[in-house]
């Protein structure tokens, strides 16, 4: 029992150290560096919200277009950033894996924590801006469902990221292929429109995209009175659990090989 407790303490220490180091290498040395990291997705959301507002589009769900964009982009970014950040985690932390304490799992865990924290801060920040600008009526349909969807989104993104990490390690060109797959995903996930209001043919195609379900579920949790006909929670949960299990399994099986590589 004591051994496990010790191992847990070491792991907690290592993950904390990795997070601190990562903020340094990725966001630079100044304290303002991390603010830049927040600024990028923030600008992403605000620019799209502004464009759609100015072109006079209205939200099919009622309320502002800005809220529509935010509730689409946040779950999407959560998935997309986690899956690519974890894919590149091994390469970025290769040197540190020479320390016996630092395991590939720690590297993945620290990136996940940092990424989720960053995305959450940005989401809350944009929500506040929308509230101040009267673009959000400060109502949430179900706070608990919202947290649950975020949790599912993290599991889905991290699971995919783990699979990506192992595949990119074994086949270096995989990273490019995944990038290619992700590009149309941006338009096929229902960020800028509501899948539930699309024709049944379009819904049929998008049905297989788990991120479309993630966004629909997220919107059902935020918008009062919106129940999505499209949303299939079972499909999303099954998909997520499979991906997460597969990702953890692949990482476990290849952890020694990942360590050994130079």
């Amino acid at each position, binding site marked *: 029992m004591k051994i496990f407790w010790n191992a847990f303490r070491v792991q907690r220490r290592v993950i*904390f150290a990795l997070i*601190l180091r990562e903020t340094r290498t990725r966001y630079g040395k100044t304290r303002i560096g991390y603010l830049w990291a927040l600024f990028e997705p923030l600008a992403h959301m605000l620019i799209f919200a502004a464009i759609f507002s100015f072109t006079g589009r209205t939200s099919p769900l009622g309320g502002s277009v800005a809220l529509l964009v935010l509730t689409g982009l946040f779950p999407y970014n959560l998935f997309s950033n986690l899956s690519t950040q974890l894919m590149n985690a091994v390469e970025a932390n290769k*040197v540190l894996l020479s*320390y*016996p304490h630092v395991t590939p799992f720690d590297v993945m865990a620290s990136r996940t924590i940092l990424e989720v924290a960053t995305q959450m801060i940005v989401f809350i920040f944009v929500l506040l801006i929308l509230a101040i600008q009267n673009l959000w009526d400060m109502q949430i349909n179900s706070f608990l469902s919202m947290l649950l969807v975020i949790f599912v989104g993290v599991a889905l993104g991290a699971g995919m990221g783990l699979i990506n990490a192992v595949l990119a390690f074994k086949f270096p060109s995989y990273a490019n292929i995944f990038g290619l797959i992700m590009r149309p995903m941006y338009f096929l996930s229902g960020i800028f429109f509501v899948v539930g209001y699309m024709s049944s043919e379009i819904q049929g195609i998008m049905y297989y995209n788990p991120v479309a379900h993630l966004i629909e579920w997220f919107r059902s949790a935020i918008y009062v009175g919106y129940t999505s006909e499209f949303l299939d929670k079972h499909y999303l949960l099954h998909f997520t659990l499979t991906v997460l299990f597969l990702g953890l399994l692949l990482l476990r099986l290849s952890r020694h090989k990942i*360590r050994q590589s130079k």
Partner: protein
Amino acid sequence: MIEFKNVSKAYALGSGKKILLDNISFRFEQGLNIGILGVNGAGKSTALKLIAGSEAPDKGRIIRSGTFSWPLGFSAGFQGSLSGEENLRFICRIYAANIRSVIKFVADFSELGDALYEPVATYSTGMRARLAFALSMAIEFDVYLVDEIMGVGDRLFQQKCRDAFVEKSKQSSIIMVSHNMNTIREYSDVVLVLSNGNVDIYEDIEEAIASYEK
């Protein structure tokens, strides 16, 4: 204490496989300084990584008690884009060492001066090795794993390293890989000679060196 139980380790090499350790078993108690000899590619550095736990054996078990350092070598795990000081902070955190006292010690010992706050990527090999050596001396371990790091820098620095090492070896033990027979003679109580997957253990250093040079 370090114990190998039927440990095997091979590397994929092109289409074939290079066997570095073939069903090796041994056990050494705490307090014994061990030198590892072998020609290039015999698996000395890999053996050190196995002892440290930064690599896993293909087969068998490795049991260690006490705290072991990471393998200290020229290619020590420093992140090039970060400064020497930032690298120190990271390593202190993972080993739960006191950051302030380690940085102070390393600054004094390594004589890197302001370079300690410059990115490690700008360091020369000698500077890196000085940083690595100073850092390893700053953190307390029961066993220090040393990969060809002796003989760094000028004569004065070498003398300093030697003194620090002698001081350390009073409480801790050392497992080292070296090509330098004088270093092996000076620090080892036992010598392991690696060749073709086998490990021969010599308690007589001269005998080991003779067999290695044969």
